[in-house]
């Protein structure tokens, strides 16, 4: 990669590019490349490799997800070599925060006969068995050296094991067969913390909020009265106020999570709207909001204006213990304000089908995985026309005034490259989402990792890939076989 996002500082640092410069109001970016770098197979690295990589990536037939994020409504960008060590990439329109995307672009050799095996990074692929493991081998031509002038990486090989069973993962880690575990669930982590405190490392809040949303789509096959409930802000806010987020974090995640306020977790330091606090747990306030909206709570049962008892189902993916537990806890919380919640766990396939195709569901409890800190990555979620606008996807025109307002702010942040103005616009989006509660943010999990006693230089971060983002500097105390995250 040309640049790397330092997972700890959340700043970009130079790698294959020694420097870069944006020009023409964000429509062009010029990289100055490092000299004397060779691929793992010995072929030299130069501007033509970057151009080749970029062209391959932008080929629509390749369906590259990273390529998609470079593309905009106005068209695809073009790469051009200015000299052997200078590349210019031109965009049809300014794209805000585009340079961070280069963190995810792996440069491929234009000349090497065995392209897939020629790497520029610290390790090269040696062996790969699908669903089982990936074996990486030290790249002898890696350019980077440590402060003492020693060539990086320190490790000779890395074996990435793909394990299906969390129980097995933990057992092998405890036996020392695995040196690193990239992600532990809270249950396993709590157990690890109890008997090997030094190995259990809490990397802090992740970018992954757990949330619940109601199906507000007018096309859904739900009865009209349920659509009316779900489209009512008072109803959504009341449900939100009835949920005890502290209890969720404490009991489901053993305290390794915190109540969530909005789409941007506190971990995303540059973008979070710090003025927003999680919706407070207050069943009394919940009932007051509902009564104001025409609902009545009588002898423990909440009824709407027409006298229909409020009952709805929440779907979540089966096998995720934490979500099943959260659903059960929310069930009890909502019972206190007279709402009957039915928990339905579905296999992931049927769940996705329901929330994206048939829209035959009432509410859904799911987590969001954010790999990217920049709000542009969330365009699809917030624009009312977006396919991932879960509560009412792919609208022709915004169904509500507040969705129209979100659309405006999202477009505004995307159309400028000025960080302060982008931040201000995205703050507005977060504020509206907080007020209208289309997503009820529940908790933000901490990123929990396991680090074996022999591993050195680990800087666990709460962004992917948490334990080995700085893989070239990882080392083992006793020079044993290699690390196995």
């Amino acid at each position, binding site marked *: 990669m040309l640049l790397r996002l330092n997972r700890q500082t959340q700043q970009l640092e130079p790698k294959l590019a020694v420097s870069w410069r944006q020009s023409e109001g964000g429509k062009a970016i010029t990289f100055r490349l490092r000299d004397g770098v060779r691929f793992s197979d010995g072929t030299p690295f130069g501007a033509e490799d970057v151009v080749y990589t970029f062209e391959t990536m932008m080929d629509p037939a390749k369906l590259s997800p990273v390529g998609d994020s470079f593309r905009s409504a106005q068209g695809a960008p073009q790469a051009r070599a200015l000299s052997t060590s200078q590349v210019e990439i031109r965009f049809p329109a300014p794209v805000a925060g585009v340079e961070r995307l280069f963190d995810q672009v792996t440069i491929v050799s234009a000349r090497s006969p065995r392209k897939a095996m020629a790497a520029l990074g610290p390790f090269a692929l040696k062996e790969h068995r699908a669903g089982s493991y990936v074996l990486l081998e030290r790249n002898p031509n890696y350019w980077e050296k440590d402060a003492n002038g020693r060539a990086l990486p320190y490790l000779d090989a890395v074996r990435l094991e793909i394990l299906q069973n969390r*129980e097995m993962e933990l057992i092998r880690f405890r036996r020392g067969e695995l040196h690193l575990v990239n992600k532990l669930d809270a*249950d396993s982590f709590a*157990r690890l913390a109890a*008997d090997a405190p030094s190995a259990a490392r809490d990397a802090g809040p992740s970018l992954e909020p757990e949330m619940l949303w109601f199906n507000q789509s007018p096309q859904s096959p739900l009865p009209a009265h349920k659509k009316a409930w779900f489209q009512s802000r008072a109803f959504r806010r009341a449900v939100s106020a009835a949920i005890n987020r502290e*209890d969720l974090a*404490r*009991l489901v995640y053993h305290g390794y999570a915190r109540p969530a306020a909005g789409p941007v977790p506190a971990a995303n330091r540059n973008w979070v709207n710090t003025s927003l606090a999680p919706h407070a747990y207050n069943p009394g306030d919940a009932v007051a909001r509902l009564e104001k909206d025409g609902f009545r709570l009588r002898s423990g049962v909440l009824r709407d204006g027409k006298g229909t008892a409020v*009952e*709805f*189902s929440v*779907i979540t*993916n*089966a*096998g995720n213990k934490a979500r*099943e*537990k959260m*659903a*059960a*806890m929310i*069930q*009890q919380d909502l019972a206190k304000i007279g709402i009957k919640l*039915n*928990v*339905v*766990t*579905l*296999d992931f*396939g*049927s769940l996705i089908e*329901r929330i994206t195709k048939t829209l*035959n*569901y*009432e509410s859904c409890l799911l987590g969001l995985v954010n790999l990217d800190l920049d709000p542009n990555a969330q365009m699809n979620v917030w624009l009312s026309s977006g396919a991932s606008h879960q509560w009412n996807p792919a609208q022709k025109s915004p169904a509500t005034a507040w969705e129209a307002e979100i659309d405006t702010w999202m477009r505004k942040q995307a159309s400028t490259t000025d960080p302060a103005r982008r931040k201000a616009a995205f703050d507005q989006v977060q504020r509206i989402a907080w007020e209208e509660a289309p997503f009820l943010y529940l908790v933000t999990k901490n990123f929990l990792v396991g680090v074996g006693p022999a591993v050195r230089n680990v800087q666990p971060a709460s962004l992917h890939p948490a334990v080995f983002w700085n893989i070239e500097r990882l080392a083992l105390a006793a020079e044993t076989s290699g690390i196995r995250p």
Partner: protein
Amino acid sequence: MKQLRIAAMGVLVAIFSASLAADLLSPHPYGEQYRDAVNAAPSRAFPMGTDDMGRDRLSRLLHACRVSLLLAPAAALVATTLAGLLGGAAGYLGGTADRVFLRLSDLFLSLPWLFLFLSVRSLLPLNAAPAVSAVATFLLLGVLGWAGPARVARACACGLRQSDFVMQAKANGRSPMRLLLVEIVRNLRPVLAAQFWLAIPVFVLAEANLGLLGLGVSEPLPSLGGLLRELENYQAVVSQPWMVAPAIILIGVTGCLHLVLGWEEIRR
């Protein structure tokens, strides 16, 4: 042997009546979360402690027994009845009927029925009560579970077909239907009884596995299978040994059923 059988009967009666009276005997509602007392050790308030959501383990166990120990035998009954009729008929008739049966049972044993379970869950309304989904799951387990026991029944029926008393019944001019029911299926009863009590723990565990896929008995209704799933966490079991109670109950019930039913067949 006789004392043992009476003791087994006593255990069964105790467990079944306790699970029938679960509502009366439970110290707490089975779904109530006492969030300030999670993973509590046994105490006067919680005789068997609480689970990781602060729910009373004893109350959950009682209700789990009610769900699993009533529905699993019902499913086993469905499966063994089908097995007796289909396997008995195939073994008795032989020929084409038998070949069709063997193909069909092969198919039933090899098909990935999970898909059927998945589609059944998505056919049930989302707001279906947990009890409805529990009954549907066990019923389906029963309907799909005939093939294994039926193969055993068929093998026995093949032997019975050649027996003197079946030949004698034919010489008496008995109708094929009565022959099947009275001469074949009646004589398969010891075999079917064995299949029946084998099927009960199998179905209880099958329900637990389905639970992992979001089928079966849904929250907050407990089932024995669901409680057994907690035993996966071996470290928790070591620190809270009372968690193994559901496993003991399941083994106890199966063992006692074996004793009681087995004795019945010896006497006959």
